[in-house]
């Protein structure tokens, strides 16, 4: 399988755990991993508690419940009542948290704005060991992290930029940054 980025390292415990989840998810919908986990995937050493996932949406309520049933079988749980969860996620577009038995959880979010939609549609493939993950394109991810603006986000943006410099289209990233009204001079 052709990938955009190959990380030459052994997958860690968190990589195995995320892969187990996205392997099921990609059977139901398109997705993109965003935020801090992408920096960790590229080799950054920092702790995280949540993994942010943006998805396209599910075909039907039945499909969504089938997905929930499947992840429940491998030990995941959600905090919201099952009969409301589809309404909250698909109709209202609110994020839901999917917990595991361990200390992590997934921030599960439906694509709402143009940045989310393009993040899923033009997601890049990152391979680590035998695992392939889809993450948001760096041209969107880097300025978006700067838009969030916390210390942690700026560090992540800088790290992602440094690691993926070779494949980043600077012009596209600058245009996106201009639209988001963020200053790229912090990292470029």
């Amino acid at each position: 399988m052709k990938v955009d980025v190959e990380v030459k390292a052994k997958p860690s415990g968190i990589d195995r755990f995320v892969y187990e989840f996205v392997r099921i998810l990609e059977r139901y919908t398109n997705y993109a991993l965003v935020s801090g986990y992408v920096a960790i995937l590229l080799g950054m050493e920092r702790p995280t508690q949540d993994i942010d996932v943006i998805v396209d949406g599910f075909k039907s309520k039945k499909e969504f419940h089938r997905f929930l049933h499947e992840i429940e079988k491998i030990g995941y749980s959600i905090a919201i009542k099952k009969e409301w969860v589809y309404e909250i996620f698909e109709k209202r577009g609110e994020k839901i948290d999917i917990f595991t038995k361990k200390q992590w959880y997934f921030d599960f979010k439906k694509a709402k704005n143009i940045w989310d939609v393009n993040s899923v549609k033009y997601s890049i493939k990152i391979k680590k060991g035998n695992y392939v993950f889809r993450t948001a394109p760096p041209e969107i991810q880097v300025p978006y992290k700067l838009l969030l603006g916390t210390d942690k986000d700026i560090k992540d943006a800088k790290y992602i930029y440094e690691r993926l410099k070779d494949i980043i289209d600077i012009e596209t990233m600058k245009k996106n940054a201009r639209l988001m009204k963020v200053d790229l001079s912090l990292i470029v």
Partner: protein
Amino acid sequence: MKKTKIKAKRITPLPPVPKLARQRMGKKRRYEEYMRPIEYIAKHRSPKILLYKKARRRVVKQ
């Protein structure tokens, strides 16, 4: 800190840059929109736009 090695070659197409609503309008339409009387805008558009337009006219007058 030891850096993990990375091999990168872009195969996924670049994401398009989204266009703003104003950019999507042609130059002529943008001009026509600007030249419309305030009463027309008050009737057809949101009050927020009206405020924006009034403010702009005030600046022009000064």
